[in-house]
């Protein structure tokens, strides 16, 4: 039990953060608006969660301009992908153990 709980990652312990990682696992990148639309989060809420994930280096952020509009793209980092997989496996084990 404690072994499994070790792999439950605190960084993913929120619906929005879990959502961001899920989207970035299957897409090469996602921009801010795409994440917002898919997750149904507000700007401020989403920004704080992406910051948190960026801080632990699970996602990579690239800012650029498309025309005159600023555009922020998010990529899952290699560490982020590995940690996310571990987290999912732990979740699945927890469910199976019940």
């Amino acid at each position: 039990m404690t072994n499994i709980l070790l792999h439950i990652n605190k960084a993913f312990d929120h619906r929005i953060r879990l959502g961001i990682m899920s989207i970035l696992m299957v897409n090469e990148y996602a921009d801010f608006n795409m994440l917002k639309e898919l997750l149904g989060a507000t700007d401020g809420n989403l920004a704080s969660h992406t910051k948190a994930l960026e801080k632990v280096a699970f996602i990579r952020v690239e800012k650029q301009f498309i025309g005159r509009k600023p555009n922020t793209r998010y990529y899952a980092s290699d560490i982020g992908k590995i940690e996310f997989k571990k987290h999912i496996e732990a979740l699945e084990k927890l469910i199976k153990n019940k």
Partner: protein
Amino acid sequence: MLPRKALKKLNYKKNLPKSFFYFYFVIQSSLIMSTENYLNDISEIKQLMNKSSRFISLSGLSGILAGTYALIGAAVAYYLVITSSEGHVILNGSLYKLIILDMILILFFSIVTGFLLSSKKAKENGESMWNSTSKRLISSLLTPLLAGGLYILIILEQQIYGQTGALMLLFYGLALVNASKHTIGDIKYLGYMEIILGLLCALIPGFAFWLWVLGFGILHIIYGSVMYFKYERK
């Protein structure tokens, strides 16, 4: 925190069995609760992965209609050839131009129907019609399709006839297989079937017309019905 408070309240030294059960209940129920949360997490993860990478609103009904248009178009072409004085298609004659027009009309109506029905379905699904998944779907579908279409027009211009039906089926099949990773459903298998039909068509040109009818008409109707009953009717 809660169990300890609860234990104090129940004065567990005097009243062990009762508080023990209470404690057991709290742990047990919190475990059940969290398992349920994790299950929700997992299903939400799966849903987001699908929704963010696949366009889910491709309408099955539009497949049925596209197949029907193809059958009508094929019947018209058949009728034109049968009733023409020559009895077979003479290339660069007026009959040939009519048949090309017929094919373009089929394509046009199929695309319009597909677009309208899919956008209606997207609205029902709360998905926007023009998002990153639909863009990817369209670009991966159109790349082989446009390349193939232009190639067919070029070789027709060079008066290389006879493989048009096979090439249409082949390129269409390849386009479907290529696009299948951006949508749900079994569109990949439809693509494989079209490729096989295209190769058969090249092998036995005498049956080209009927293989074309099978590939663009009947297969579309079957595929559309399967999609419709599997994913749309609940």
